[in-house]
C-alpha cells in the first residue's frame, strides 16, 4: 500500500455513539458482540416494523457544552464539538499550547445540516416569509460541524468537510494525512460525524432504504488526533498507533474488478484485525480478499452511517496491540472503496 512519508501517528481518539460517550463503551460492546441498536418507533418508520437504529441516546449536549451555546448548535455540531474536545484531551493537547494556525480539522459529514434545513423550510412552507428563522439557516451547511468545532477550540489550520457515500470519514482522514505530509498543519483532527433524525427515518422508509442501505443506521462522531510521528515524539505524546497507508478507488469497473481490488489492497494480504464499514451488501466484493485473525463489523454494534468511519477507525486503533496490523475496509453502494492500514503502537 502507499505509505505515508513522514509517518503519521495517532495520538488521541474519541467517539460518541449508540454505545455511549467515549471509545471505551463502544469497544466493550464490539468485543462482547453486544448490539447497541434499538427498535425504531413504529410511528417514525411509516408503519413498517422490525427496523433498528443506533441513536446516541446517552449523549446530552449540555454535559459538554454550556446550555446557551448548545442551543445554537445543530445536533451534528454538538456531537463534533463534544468529540473534538474529548479527542484533544485524550491527546494531551491544551488550547493555546500550540499555534492555532497549525491545527486543523477534516471531517466527513453525512446528513449534517439536513435537520436544520428541514426545519427552516418547514417554517417557510407553513407560514411564508414570516415563518423563516434566520438563526437556523447558518447551520444548514454540511460544514457546520467542523466549523463550530474549529470556532470552539480555535482551530485555524486547514478546515475541510467531505461527503462521499459511506466513505465520508475515510475521505476526510485521507485529506488530513496529506495536509500533515505536506506540512500544511502539525496536528489534524480527523474523522466523521452524522446525525439521525425522525425526518431522515421517514425519508429512508418512503424510499425503501430502511430495508437496504439505511438498515441499522446510526449517529455519532468519531475523531482521531493525527500528527507527524516526529512532531508527536517531540512533544512527548503517547502514540496509540501509526496510520501507515490509505488507498481508495472510486468504483470497481465492470470487467476490471480485480484490478480495482488489487489497487485498493496492493500487497496487503493479511492482518491481525480487519474491520468492515459501510452497508454489508456493499462490502461483498471485498470479502475474502484479506486474511485476518479477527474480523469485525462495527456497524452491527453501533449502526452504520455515511461518516461512521471515524468511530470505526478509533475502535480499530484501540483494539490493536503494539506491532499488530489493522485494516479498515470501507465500502459504499456504487463506490467508493477505502482501505486504511493501521499499525498498533509505535516502534521506539
Amino acid at each position, binding site marked *: 500500500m502507499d505509505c505515508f512519508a513522514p509517518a503519521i501517528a495517532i495520538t488521541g481518539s474519541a467517539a460518541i455513539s449508540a454505545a455511549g460517550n467515549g471509545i471505551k463503551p463502544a469497544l466493550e460492546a464490539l468485543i462482547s458482540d453486544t448490539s447497541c441498536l434499538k427498535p425504531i418507533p413504529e410511528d417514525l418508520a411509516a408503519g413498517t416494523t422490525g427496523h433498528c437504529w443506533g441513536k446516541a441516546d446517552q449523549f446530552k449536549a449540555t454535559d459538554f457544552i454550556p446550555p446557551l451555546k448548545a442551543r445554537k448548535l445543530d445536533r451534528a455540531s454538538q456531537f463534533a464539538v463534544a468529540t473534538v474536545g474529548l479527542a484533544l484531551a485524550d491527546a494531551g493537547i491544551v488550547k493555546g499550547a500550540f499555534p492555532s494556525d497549525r491545527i486543523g480539522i477534516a471531517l466527513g459529514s453525512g446528513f449534517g445540516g439536513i435537520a436544520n434545513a428541514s426545519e427552516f423550510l418547514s417554517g417557510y412552507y407553513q407560514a411564508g416569509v414570516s415563518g423563516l428563522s434566520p438563526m437556523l439557516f447558518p447551520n444548514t451547511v454540511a460544514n457546520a460541524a467542523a466549523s463550530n468545532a*474549529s470556532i470552539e477550540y480555535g*482551530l485555524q489550520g486547514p*478546515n475541510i468537510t467531505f461527503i462521499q457515500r459511506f466513505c465520508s470519514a475515510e475521505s476526510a482522514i485521507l485529506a488530513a494525512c496529506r495536509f500533515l505530509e505536506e506540512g500544511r498543519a502539525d496536528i489534524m483532527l480527523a474523522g466523521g460525524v452524522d446525525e439521525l433524525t425522525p425526518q431522515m427515518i421517514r425519508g429512508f422508509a418512503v424510499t425503501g432504504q430502511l430495508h437496504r442501505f439505511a438498515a441499522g443506521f446510526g449517529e455519532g462522531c468519531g475523531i482521531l488526533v493525527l500528527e507527524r510521528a516526529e512532531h508527536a515524539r517531540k512533544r512527548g505524546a503517547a502514540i496509540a498507533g501509526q496510520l501507515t497507508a490509505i488507498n481508495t478507488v472510486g468504483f470497481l469497473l465492470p470487467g476490471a474488478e480485480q484490478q480495482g481490488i488489487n489497487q485498493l489492497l496492493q500487497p496487503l494480504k493479511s492482518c491481525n484485525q480487519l474491520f468492515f464499514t459501510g452497508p454489508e451488501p456493499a462490502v461483498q466484493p471485498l470479502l475474502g480478499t484479506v486474511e485476518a485473525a479477527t474480523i469485525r463489523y462495527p456497524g452491527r454494534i453501533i449502526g452504520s452511517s455515511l461518516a461512521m468511519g471515524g468511530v470505526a477507525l478509533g475502535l480499530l486503533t484501540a483494539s490493536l496491540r503494539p506491532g499488530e496490523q489493522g485494516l479498515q475496509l470501507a465500502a459504499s453502494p456504487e463506490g467508493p472503496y477505502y482501505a486504511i492500514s493501521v499499525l498498533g503502537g509505535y516502534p521506539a
Partner: protein
Amino acid sequence: MSPKRIVITGLGTINGAAGTIPAFQEAILQGTSGIAPLDLFDVSQFPARIGCQVKGYDPAEYFTRRQITHLSRTDQLALIAAREAVAMSDVTGCYDPYQIGVCIGGGVGGMLHAEAWLQGELSNKPARPGLLRTLLPDCSSTVIAHELGFAGFQGSITTACSSSGTAIGWAADLIRSGRQQAMLCGGADALAMLTFAGFNALKVVDPNPCAPFSAGRQGLSLGEGAAFMVLEEEQAARSRGAQILGYLLGYALVGEAHHMTAPEPTGEAAARVMNAALAAAGVAHDQVGWINAHGTGTPLNDVVESNAVKLVFGERAGKVPLISTKAITGHCLGAAGAIEAVASVLALNAGIIPQTLHFRGVDPECDLDYGHSGSRTTATRIALSNSFAFGGNVTSLVLGSAALQQEVC
C-alpha cells in the same frame, strides 16, 4: 526535485451567464451579466426576485427521459459541464481509468427536489419519494464517475461557498502526491428555496443586480451552475499531446475559527490563506496580476476582502485589481469557486482583467482598484481566485495562463 506542475487541459461550464466555455468567455470578456428575474420557483414573497438562473434550460437536450427522472438539477448541470471539460481535454483513454478521479465541490445537491417532497408531506399530498434519492451533494460525483468511466478517487467537498475552489486544490494535491494521474474537478450547485430564502432571511440579498465593492451595495445575487477542469501533471499531459489551457500553481485553505456567518473583520485569516497559496505555488507577490475576489457584494465581505488584500500586498495593493465576476454569474455557492476559477483562466489566456459590473459609486471603505470602469488588457499571467464561506472556510487558488509554459515559474 521540483514539485510537479499541474496543468489544466479541459474546461467546461454551464451557468446563468452562459451555457458553454466559448459563450462564457464572451460573457466574461464583454462583461455580460446573466442576472435577471427568477422563475425556477415562486419568489414573489421576497423583496429580491432576481438571480442568475440557467435560462431556457431543457434537460431533454442533454439527457434521456430515464436520466432526467433520476438526476437532480444539480447533477444534470454537473454532467453537462463535466462532459464539456472531458471532451475538450480528450483525456479519456489516455490513462488507466483507476488513475483518473473525480472531485466535486457541492452545496445543496438535490435540495430543490427534496423541497417538493417536503412541501407534499406538510400539505398531506405525498410527493414522489424518488425526489429524495438525489438529495445529498455527493450524487453528482458518483453519476459523473460512472458515466465517464473514471474509477479513481471519487469525492465531494462541502464547505459551503468555498467547496469547489477547495475541490480543485485538493484534486491537484491528489496528482502531486502521485495518487492520481488526472482529475476531473470542479463544482455544481442549483438554485433552491433553501438558499434563496436563507440568504433573504439574513437580509444579504440585493434587490438589484449585485454591485461588488460599490457604494450602496445591499448584498449578493444568487446564481446556479457548474464548472469543471481536467487537471494533469504537466509532463504527462505534454507527452500525450494535450493542449495546455493553464496552470493550477498552488492553493491553500484555512479555517477562520471566528464565526459561522461573519468573516473575521481584519482580513487576517483571508490574508493568511492568500500568502499560503502563493508560497505553495512558489509565486512571488509581484507576479500576481489581479485577483478574482470572492466579491459577493455584501457590505461586510467586500470590506474584509479589501483589508486582506492590503495585508497581503501592502503598498502594492492598489495596483493589483480586485475584481468580482459574481456580477456576471451571480453567487453560485458550492459551484462559485469553480466557475470563478474557469473565468479566471479564460481571462488570463485572453490577457484581459474582467470588469466588475454594476458600479453605483465609490465606497470609502473599499479603496482599491476594483475594475469598475471596464475591462482592460494585461500582460500578467498569474491571478489569485478567492473563495470564502459560512463557517470561515477560506480557500485561495493560484492560477496561471497557458503562456506560462514558455517560462520557468
